[in-house]
């Protein structure tokens, strides 16, 4: 999977490294700001009320 992505990034090693870092940052941001905030309230780790 990662090998396939690497082969399909444009340019030489420098360009590919920059592209890979941009992709990584985008994925981490998506997880931190969209996916995790959505998932977290649905997990039963932090129920603090009696009901």
């Amino acid at each position, binding site marked *: *999977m*990662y090998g396939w992505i690497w082969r399909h990034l444009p340019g030489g090693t420098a360009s590919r490294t920059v592209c890979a870092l941009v992709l990584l940052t985008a994925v*981490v941001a998506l*997880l*931190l700001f969209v996916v*995790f905030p959505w*998932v*977290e*309230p649905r997990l*039963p*780790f*932090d*129920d*603090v*009320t*009696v*009901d």
Partner: protein
Amino acid sequence: MTDPDGDRTQRWDRVPGLPPVPGARADAPPRRGLWRTLALGAGELLVTAGVVLLLFAVYAVFVTDVVTAQRQDELSEQLREEWDSAPGRGAITRVELGDAFAVLRIPRLGEDYTRVVLEGTEEEQLSQGPGHYTDTAMPGEEGNVAFAGHRVGKGSPFLQLDAMRPGDPVVVETADSWFVYRVLAEDDPSGIPGMQIVRPTALEVISPTPNAAGAAPSGAYLTLTTCHPRYSARQRLVVHARLDGGALSKAQYPDGPDALHENR
């Protein structure tokens, strides 16, 4: 570095190469079997899943703290402005769901422990700060003023709640008053414990008289609930306190009651 005969190619370039292997392409990646490709892909997916889970743990424990701390600063500023612009409104009678309406101070949890509390105990409120159970008493009233707060993450307001000792002050600041509650002693005549660990369904801990569902209020109590043990939602840690004295006006005590500076 010039060869005497003027040939600039390296020596090994002049050695005749081996004849090409039939069918092999020099620049193509080595061909792998289907199973090998699948196994490599599965391995990469598993490692990725592990990294994502680690990232989630970091998010839940640290990143939410930062977000909540920012929100608490905003709420605190808004509440101060609101209080300063309309002094002397009298007792709180009704607040809307989601409104910030009081400030909780617990010296045992830190000299400068201050949390703005909001009305309601849905995740939307609890992610911003401790929440006040709707339909429980308001600060200072007869009955039980009950708050829930996160133990780990979201600012971790009640992380150290198990450190509370009998007699510890829990101070609630409202628009114009201070209320000092004190954690109940083990041998309190009411029979209500200062701290207990209960099932998540133990609704009676926030009833007007704690642990006596359906009974009339028998005093002015305060109850804090959070999850227990840490990182788990199996049980609830509950702390009960009772109002010590009456309301202290903020006009008379602009810097708060002495209980805020009790050094134990």
